[in-house]
């Protein structure tokens, strides 16, 4: 059912609509997938609803750039502002596994400083939790995926990875060479959530380079293959092809369930004692805003007016360098080497926070579009530059863009195929962002020159989406508390990338999963009081190490 190697051994439980769930989880991606698995293991009656399909990786996916189009959120959205974000394939998945199906799977942790940006730098915001609250969950998820990388990773809070680093492709070679010439530390072969050796029924990586088109091999982790199978084996239901349109509010300011459209366009209502929204940084605020009702005219759980605000993307400029010798960058995972040497605020620079430099590996269509903007290529120039595809290597910078209240998701007047108002995204860069990008761009180009490139060009773009339902200690300026519970409604939670108050310059996937595992521990520790009471316990739960999927434990770990 899952593909060539993985199968689901147990039939999936089905809940009737009039059966009351303990938890209805909207979205089965990085956050929803991990949460579903944990809650099912702990014995809750839980179902995950996903707008997209339950993938059969062997029959549905292809080793083909254009053919992978259906992995992305392709429904209508409007994007605007002074620096409009590309959506769709750039950052939004649709289907069980969510964006982990098409992530490149770089999984660095956030640094301790990321949780105290306002205190340290006077910009952005502080998180209501610290790195040390998340650290045990980083360690858990790194084993559950598992992550391949060096045995000593030097940045932030130094740590090692359970699976060995991957061999270098041509782009990684260039990054190492460029960084080494300039005296910049570089991590080779990870951290990526790609198997460098087989584990249980998942084979090792075959270095075919189609990571972001969906890993048919099963070597790259996605919650579709890492957490959802165990969720189902533990009694969870995954209801695929169900587009949730509204969360219902009952008396006593508590939610009672969700409405959704099935594949045939029929509308259903599912009762639930509590609802978790895990739809990522656009669909989560869209659903809350579309669930406006008496008492919450401005959107459900939006008394703060923060739902949809403080949306963030990372600067993702791609720097392309042409080399005399061949590179053939389509081989090896796009993600396989990076440096976080410039991650932290440096008082010598004229901006706060920093950036990472990472390998990327665009396949021909993506590369041609980059050349369209980076060199203005079209016509014969485009044909000529594309004949040199194998001579180019590409680095992506990942720069921290600060949260701003005017970067936001709102509801448009336009509607989607179900008649649900679509999201309108507004995005602008501000002063610190522009300075940071300018510096990071130059530095990344310096590294490409130092690697021996004869020509270096770049294209401006963005990567990832987080924020828009941020967590915080103050209900006036945030949507949820440090455990994912909305300040306004005691049995409504958010668990995905939208909860982040700031984003660092690390890829967000691992942190989303770590937050989900912590949220799960909290919900499990609270037990049925979530369903019966509005009391808000703010004590951290103990870390449950017994809820990981099978095959997590009993492997060696490098010791620092």
């Amino acid at each position, binding site marked *: 059912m899952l593909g060539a190697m993985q199968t689901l051994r147990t039939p999936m439980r089905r809940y009737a609509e009039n059966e009351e769930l303990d938890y209805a989880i909207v979205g089965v991606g990085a956050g929803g997938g991990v949460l579903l698995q944990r809650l099912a293991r702990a014995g809750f009656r839980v179902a995950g609803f996903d707008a997209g399909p339950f993938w059969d990786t062997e029959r549905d*996916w292809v080793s083909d750039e*254009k053919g992978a189009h259906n992995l992305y959120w392709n*429904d209508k959205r*409007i994007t605007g502002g002074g620096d409009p974000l590309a959506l769709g*394939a750039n950052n939004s998945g649709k289907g069980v596994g969510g964006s982990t199906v098409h992530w490149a799977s770089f999984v660095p942790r956030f640094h301790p400083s990321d949780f105290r940006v306002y205190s340290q730098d006077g910009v952005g915001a502080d998180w209501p939790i610290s790195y040390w609250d998340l650290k045990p969950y980083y360690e858990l998820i790194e084993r559950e995926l598992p992550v391949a990388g060096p045995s000593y990773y030097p940045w932030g809070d130094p740590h090692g990875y359970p699976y060995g680093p991957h061999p270098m492709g041509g782009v990684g070679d260039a990054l190492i060479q460029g960084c080494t010439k300039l005296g910049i530390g570089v991590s080779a072969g990870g951290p990526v959530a790609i198997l460098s050796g087989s584990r249980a029924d998942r084979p090792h990586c075959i270095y075919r380079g189609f990571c972001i088109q969906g890993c048919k091999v099963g070597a790259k982790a996605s919650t579709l293959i890492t957490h959802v199978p165990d969720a189902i084996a533990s009694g969870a239901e995954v209801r695929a092809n169900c587009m949730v349109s509204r969360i219902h509010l009952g008396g006593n300011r508590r939610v009672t369930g969700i409405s959704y459209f099935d594949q045939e366009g029929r509308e259903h209502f599912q009762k639930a004692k509590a609802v978790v929204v895990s739809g990522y940084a656009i669909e989560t605020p869209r659903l809350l805003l579309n669930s406006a009702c008496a008492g919450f005219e401005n959107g459900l759980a939006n008394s703060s007016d923060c739902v949809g605000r403080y949306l963030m993307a990372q600067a993702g400029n791609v720097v392309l360098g042409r080399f005399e010798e061949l590179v*053939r960058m389509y081989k090896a995972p796009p993600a396989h080497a990076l440096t976080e040497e410039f991650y932290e605020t440096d008082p010598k620079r004229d901006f706060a926070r920093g950036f990472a430099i990472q390998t990327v590996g665009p396949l*021909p*269509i993506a590369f041609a579009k980059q050349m369209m*903007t980076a060199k203005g290529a079209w016509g014969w120039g485009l044909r000529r530059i594309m*004949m040199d595809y194998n001579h180019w290597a590409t680095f992506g910078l990942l720069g921290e863009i600060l949260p701003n209240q005017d970067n936001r998701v709102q509801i448009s007047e336009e509607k989607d195929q179900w008649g649900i108002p679509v999201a309108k995204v507004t995005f602008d860069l501000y002063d610190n962002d522009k300075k940071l990008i300018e510096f990071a761009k130059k530095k990344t180009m310096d590294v490409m020159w130092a690697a021996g490139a004869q020509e270096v060009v770049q294209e401006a773009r963005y990567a990832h989406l987080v924020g828009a339902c941020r967590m915080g200690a103050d209900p006036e300026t945030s949507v949820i508390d440090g455990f994912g519970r909305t300040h306004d409604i005691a049995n409504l939670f958010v668990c995905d990338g939208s909860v982040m108050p700031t984003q660092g310059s690390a890829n967000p996937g691992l942190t989303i999963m770590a937050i989900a595992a912590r949220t799960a521990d909290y919900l499990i520790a609270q037990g049925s009081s979530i369903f019966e009471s509005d009391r808000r316990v703010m004590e951290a739960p103990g870390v449950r190490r017994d809820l990981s999927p099978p095959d997590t434990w009993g492997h060696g770990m490098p010791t620092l």
Partner: protein
Amino acid sequence: MKRQQPGYYPGFRTLDQQKFWDAKTRQVILDRVHDVPPIRFFSADEQALMEAICRHIVPQDDRDAAHTIPILPQIDKRLYDDTHDGYRFEDMPPDREAYRLGLQAIEQIARHLHGKAFTALSGREQDELLESLHDGDPSAAQDIWKQLPVERFWMLLVQDCVDAYYSHPWAWDEIGFGGPSYPRGYMRLERGEAEPWESEEKRYDWQAPGESVSDKFTPLGGKEEHRGGPQGGTH
């Protein structure tokens, strides 16, 4: 000079490796090669105009007739099916309308500059007209460009042409891209080395046809820094 296969990898044919591809991928790629969709969205006039435009955006004069890659049928199919990339810029009309408006504008510019239809212009004149869109500096149809930012229309057009051309296995052969690679994978990752079934590069010099102006690189929209790239994730 017309070739069966332009590019620096003579004799390299990804389709020769299809027995090493998985069944689903093989089906999708072979359908793309053998089942060229009919034109259903564009009218006959629009089709003629679009065909002329596509010949300049991704020119194929160096390919023999039997090995010309169909561009327009793929664009027409996308618009006929009304499939999207998951977002629309707030200052842009929907894609179908964008194409209809864009074609009208191109026709108006042709008549404004030369008093003739675009399809009646010389290759040079057609190339120069399209270059003015690339430069963000069209000389007529300003009413249309108010509803349809010229830079966004240009990118839409080029991206759609790129999708069609570089998704075709003959284009992979041309650029030396290995193509589908599951379940076999790759083993020679470093130093740009070829797999045993891939070809070494054999470069040669070539010139674009003399009437063309596109064999050069000038900034998109006439500006050095272009903000907000195209779709297609890389990281």
